[in-house]
Structures are given as structure tokens and as C-alpha cells.
């Protein structure tokens, strides 16, 4: 398994062209598209992940806009209910597995080696393979939309027996696609763990690592723990569908509730997989722009670990209404509320870092601050949902939709955007256009709140989720949500524009692009050369 890369002298081939027909060692660089297909460089692979994620963000976004267009008014106008169901399902699957997760993996690829002073990821070829599995998986998944009977229509949570006995014929392809995406995440996680544990610059102890590295390490352990469970569940589905078993079929002695237990045993840690790296990004940006060290570094690390451990004990808060016995309702209610404690510690630490800092409001900071505020709103609606008797009312309504979109869009996705604006100068050597970036920020904040805030009210008033039509009293809330969604979607084009402009030019950035930045990535030139830290840097202990 160990990579066999010859020892290289620094900067051996950063500007030499491949010798034609030379022995194909790593150093001879293919050009053109083969360069990207075969690259084992962590920066190039990071870029591939980020571009893939951004494209999928738009694909998933278009699906969401189909949903919002249909819900603009009560009644059935634009699409058939069957297609509507495929859109909600595909939107969820694409955003979770093809947009948010690969974006974090892309950032990990780019930044973890730079932040720990390593020359590359521990397993560069495996890294290439992990990435290229993704386009395969999602081409397959998207192709199910064109198959007879349509694509998956059972929600991103694919509850059996809806996804087995009553599923469209394409479900086997859906399972295969998810298996491939899962393998990609697992391989990525192995690589990240191996890199962080073995390749830190001499002198850098675990408790010296930047928080982005810490949160990713813990996320990678979560992935190792729960992706195999997801693989197990979908394998059982595959067998129920194709080989006559009855894991989830009551008629054959199975139990559909078992599906939900297994799914959420994966699913709840999965939602933390999508937020822990975001915590890491925000914990890098806030100290930089408040020009103060992060308050409570150690407590941040312990809080992250506590959240990860607790996330294995709360899964049935998604199942309060399946008929759990009272003791189980109580157990999962209290354990869920307990998670709010370490989460609160984090919010407290960010706010305290800001306290009496000399703050400036560049675009990364704006996104990070919006993250803190809006993610906390999502945390509070989560606490409301955690109250088991109240959840009997809220479950499967738009209130749940509002909750998880607050933690995922202005949570995970804002953090990713903050990270992109923060590290773009390092990637491209130019500052992003600050004016456009600010417009992007304000449009996004307004769009997000217009879209998702009214969903709280629609949900509390009883509007069920995953329906193509609704009762008249919900019309106003839905109208606002739909307008907000199109506004938000359109403003993301600005994001693409800023990135393209920044790649092509802009105000040149020095090695240390932000005045208050401290981590190792700011010691290499901007743009970061293809090969960095070929000789390990000297790690100076920075006061945390």
C-alpha cells in the first residue's frame, strides 16, 4: 500500500517539460487533459475536487429550482408529481454526496499538506483514483433520470420498502452509484488520516495542528466508521431487490424499521461529516480577521471530538414517530440535547475570539460571521426538533426542511465559500475582486433567508415536506421561498464570475495574503508552486 515515489530534490520539475517518451516516472508530467487525468499532485487533485463540486452544486441547484418553481403556487403546474419526487430526491443526493462532501475533500487536499508542512498527501495515486470515482458515480446516478421508470423518487433518505418493493427499476443503478461514491469517500478518508498522522512537519504535535486539520481528522474517522454501514444498508437493499432476501420486508420476516435504524446510524454522523470541516474553516478565518488567536483552542478540539462521539448515540431523533418505546424516546431526546453543549462551546469560542478584536470585514470574514449567526439559528431549530413530543408535530414538515437547510446552506456551504475566498489568493496568486465578492455575500445572505426562513412558518403551520402541491393557506410562504430560491441561485453565478476573474488576474497577493494569518500555508509563495515543503519546514510553536 505504501506509495513508491522516488525521493525528489526540491523543485525538481516544477518548470521542466516532460521528456518525450521518457520512462514514465512520476516526475515526467503529461500535458493537456492527461495531466489532469493522471495527476497525483495534491493541489491539482484538490482543484479537480473543487471544480467537480462547484459543477454539481449547480446541477443540484437546478433540481432545487425545478422544485421551487412547482411550489411557487398551489396546484400542479409545471411537472408531474412523479418527476417532482425525482427532483427532490436527486437534489438531496447530489448536494450531500456530490457537492458538499467533495468540496470539503477538495479543500482538505489543497490545504492539509500545506497546513502541516507535508510535500503531498500520503497516498498520491490513491488520491487520483478517489477523485475519478466521483464523476463515474454521479454520471451513473444522473443517468437514472433518463431510464424507463425514471430515477430514484424515494427521498434522499431512501426508506425501505419505498426504495425496495415500490422502487423504480433504476434503483439498482442508484445503489451502484452510491457504492462508488462511498468508496471514493472512504479512500479519501484513509488518505487524510494517513497524511495527518504521519506527515506533519517535524516538531508539530497533534495539539499544534490548525483546527481545519483537526476537524478533518475527526471527520475522516467518522467516515471510516459510518460509510461501511451505508455500504451495508444499500447492499441489503440490493439483495432485497434482486436476490429475494427480506431484510426490510415484513412479509419475509424482515423489518422496515430496521432500515431506518441502520440508515440513521450512518445518517446522523453523516450530517456532522458535513459540518465539522466547516467548523475548522471558520476557526481559521475568525482569528485571522479579528487579529487575535483563537479563544480556547484545546476546548475546540475536545468539543469536536465530543460532537463526533455523541453523534453515534442520537440517530433515533430522526425516528421519534416510528413508535419507539418511551425509554428510547427519552434517551434519544436527552442525548440529542447533549450535543448542543459542545456545539455551544464552539459558538462561544468564536464569539469570544471576536470580542475586542480589531476586526476587518473582508469577504471570507463576512461569510464566516454569517455562518456563526445563521448556523446557530439552525442549531436552535434542531433543539426544538429534539424535543420528542414536539417533534410529533414537526416531523416531516417544512420545519425540518428549514432546520437542515439553515445548518447546511448558510452553515456548510457558507463555510466552504468563506474558505474559497480565504484561500483563493494562495491558490491563484491574486486577491478575489472584493467588490463583487461582497455583492455575492449580501445577495447570498438575503437569498438564503428569503428562501428558508418562511419554511419555518409553513412547517409549524403543518405543511408536509416532499409534496408537489399544498393547501392554499401556505401559498404566501411558498411564494416568498420560491422568489428567494431563484434570487439565491442566480447570485451564485457571481461566485463563479469572481473565481474565474481571480484565476485570470487581479491584485497580486503576497505569501502572507492576510495580515492576521498565522498557519504554515502562508509561508509558501502565492500562488503556491506545484511542489511545496519538499524539505520539511521548521515548525515554530505559535502561541495558540
Amino acid at each position: 500500500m505504501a506509495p513508491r515515489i522516488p525521493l525528489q530534490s526540491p523543485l525538481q520539475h516544477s518548470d521542466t517539460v516532460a521528456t518525450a517518451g521518457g520512462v514514465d516516472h512520476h516526475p515526467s508530467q503529461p500535458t493537456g487533459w492527461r495531466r489532469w487525468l493522471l495527476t497525483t499532485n495534491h493541489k491539482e487533485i484538490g482543484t479537480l475536487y473543487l471544480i467537480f463540486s462547484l459543477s454539481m452544486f449547480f446541477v443540484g441547484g437546478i433540481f432545487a429550482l425545478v422544485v421551487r418553481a412547482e411550489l411557487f403556487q398551489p396546484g400542479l403546474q409545471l411537472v408531474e408529481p412523479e418527476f417532482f419526487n425525482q427532483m427532490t430526491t436527486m437534489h438531496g443526493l447530489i448536494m450531500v454526496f456530490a457537492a458538499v462532501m467533495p468540496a470539503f475533500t477538495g479543500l482538505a487536499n489543497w490545504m492539509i499538506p500545506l497546513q502541516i508542512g507535508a510535500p503531498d498527501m500520503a497516498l498520491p495515486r490513491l488520491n487520483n483514483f478517489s477523485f475519478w470515482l466521483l464523476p463515474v458515480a454521479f454520471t451513473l446516478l444522473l443517468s437514472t433520470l433518463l431510464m424507463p421508470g425514471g430515477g430514484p423518487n424515494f427521498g434522499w433518505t431512501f426508506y425501505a420498502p419505498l426504495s425496495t418493493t415500490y422502487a423504480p427499476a433504476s434503483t439498482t443503478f442508484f445503489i451502484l452509484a452510491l457504492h462508488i461514491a462511498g468508496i471514493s469517500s472512504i479512500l479519501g478518508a484513509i488518505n487524510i488520516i494517513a497524511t495527518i498522522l504521519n506527515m506533519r512537519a517535524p516538531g508539530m504535535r497533534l495539539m499544534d495542528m490548525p483546527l481545519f486539520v483537526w476537524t478533518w481528522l475527526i471527520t475522516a474517522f467518522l467516515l471510516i466508521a459510518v460509510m461501511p454501514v451505508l455500504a451495508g444498508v444499500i447492499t441489503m437493499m440490493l439483495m432485497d431487490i434482486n436476490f429475494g432476501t427480506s431484510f426490510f420486508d415484513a412479509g419475509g420476516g424482515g423489518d422496515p424499521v430496521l432500515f431506518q435504524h441502520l440508515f440513521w446510524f450512518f445518517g446522523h454522523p453523516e450530517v456532522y461529516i458535513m459540518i465539522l470541516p466547516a467548523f475548522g474553516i471558520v476557526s481559521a478565518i475568525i482569528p485571522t480577521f479579528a487579529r487575535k488567536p483563537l479563544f480556547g483552542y484545546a476546548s475546540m478540539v475536545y468539543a469536536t471530538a465530543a460532537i463526533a462521539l455523541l453523534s453515534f448515540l442520537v440517530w433515533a431523533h430522526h425516528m421519534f414517530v416510528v413508535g419507539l418505546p418511551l425509554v428510547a424516546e427519552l434517551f434519544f431526546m436527552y442525548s440529542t440535547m447533549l450535543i448542543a453543549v459542545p456545539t455551544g462551546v464552539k459558538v462561544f469560542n468564536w464569539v469570544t475570539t471576536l470580542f475586542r478584536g480589531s476586526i476587518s470585514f473582508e469577504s471570507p470574514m463576512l461569510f464566516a460571521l454569517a455562518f456563526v449567526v445563521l448556523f446557530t439559528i439552525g442549531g436552535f431549530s434542531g433543539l426544538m426538533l429534539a424535543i420528542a413530543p414536539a417533534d410529533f408535530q414537526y416531523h416531516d414538515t417544512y420545519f425540518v426542511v428549514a432546520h437542515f437547510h439553515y445548518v447546511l446552506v448558510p452553515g456548510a456551504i457558507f463555510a466552504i465559500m468563506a474558505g474559497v475566498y480565504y484561500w483563493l489568493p494562495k491558490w491563484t496568486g491574486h486577491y478575489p475582486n472584493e467588490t463583487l465578492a461582497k455583492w455575492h455575500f449580501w445577495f447570498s445572505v438575503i437569498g438564503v433567508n428569503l428562501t428558508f426562513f418562511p419554511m419555518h412558518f409553513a412547517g409549524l403551520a403543518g405543511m408536509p415536506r416532499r409534496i408537489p402541491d399544498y393547501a392554499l393557506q401556505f401559498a404566501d410562504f411558498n411564494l416568498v421561498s420560491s422568489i428567494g430560491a431563484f434570487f439565491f441561485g442566480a447570485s451564485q453565478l457571481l461566485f463563479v464570475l469572481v473565481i474565474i476573474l481571480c484565476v485570470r488576474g487581479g491584485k497580486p497577493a503576497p505569501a502572507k495574503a492576510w495580515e492576521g494569518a498565522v498557519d504554515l500555508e502562508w509561508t509558501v509563495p502565492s500562488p503556491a508552486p506545484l511542489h511545496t515543503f519538499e524539505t520539511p519546514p521548521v515548525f515554530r510553536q505559535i502561541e495558540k
Partner: protein
Amino acid sequence: MRSHQAEGVRKTVTKTIFALMGMFAFAFALVPLYDVFCEVTGINGKVSTSAQQVLSNEVNRDRYVTVQFITRTSAGLPWRLGVETRQVQIHPGQMTEVDFTFSNRSQSASWGRAVPSVSPSTASAHVRKVSCFCFQEQRLDANENLTIPLVFQLDNTLPEDIATVTLVYTLYPLEESNERPIVARHMNNKNGEI
């Protein structure tokens, strides 16, 4: 990469691969574990799938419990399951017999099974079935009717706060032959004691 690093990477990778295989196996192990857990605690409304002995004949005449019967047929089986009465009032400890009638309303023979569930789930451990059609698969010829009794007892330890127990039977189709689905778990009458 320096060699001590390569060594460390190899070790880390080996460990994570073991963890991965362990978790994959754990997901499958959860299937039987879930059943064992539910059987021991009786918390998902599953009742024993084999005949049980009567615990004691002591009848608690001071207490009445309503037992309701609900029957339904899942898609794909042209059968009906009827019950002699929808509701009975009984004492804990009292042996009760209720007739259920299966009728095949199609022109061909088929196999089916009635799968029981008890609500509230905390009552399931206290429903003792001495004889039940749900212990076996049924085969009905075209247009055949078959009446089979359910003989059961609510034991004396039924929690005080339970005044109504609902027994639900859902009919599921089975494949043509009586070959059982691969993971049909302990559906057969293991001990055979009646």
C-alpha cells in the same frame, strides 16, 4: 517521503482497513442483533413466533382489558382475512379463543403468511400465544375458506396502565413453492410445543 514515514503510513492504512471491514461486518451483525434486542425487550411490537405455554391459570377477575383485532392484506395477494369479532373484553390470565377466516378470492391456489404486530409495543411481551395461524405459512386453493383459531392469554404481569391491546395481522404473499425467503428469520415453529 522518508522511509519511517512510509512505514507509518503503511501501519495507519492497515489499521483503517481493518476498522472498515469491522464496521461493514457490524452493519450486517446489527440485523440479528436487532432481532435479539427486540425479542429480549419486546419493544418493537414483535411477539414470539412460536407457541408458548400457558403461564398460570390464575385469572385476575378484577381487571378487564380490551383486545382489538385488525387484519389487513398487503398488495399482491388476493386474500381476505376475516375475524369473528373485532374486539373482546378479557381478564388477564384468561385463556381466549378467537376464530380467524382466511379466504382466497382468486381462481388459483397461492401461499401467504399473516405477520403479527402488537400495540402498544410494551404489551408484546405479555401476549402469550398458545396457538396461532401466524406460526405457519398457509396455502389456499382457489376460492377456499379456512378457519383457524387464535388461542392466547394476556399474562398477569401486564402493566397496569395498559387497558387496550391491539393485535394486527398483515397478510403477505409468499412465493409459489413453500421455499422460504433467505432471511426469513425464525418463522417456523421451532419448539413445536403447544
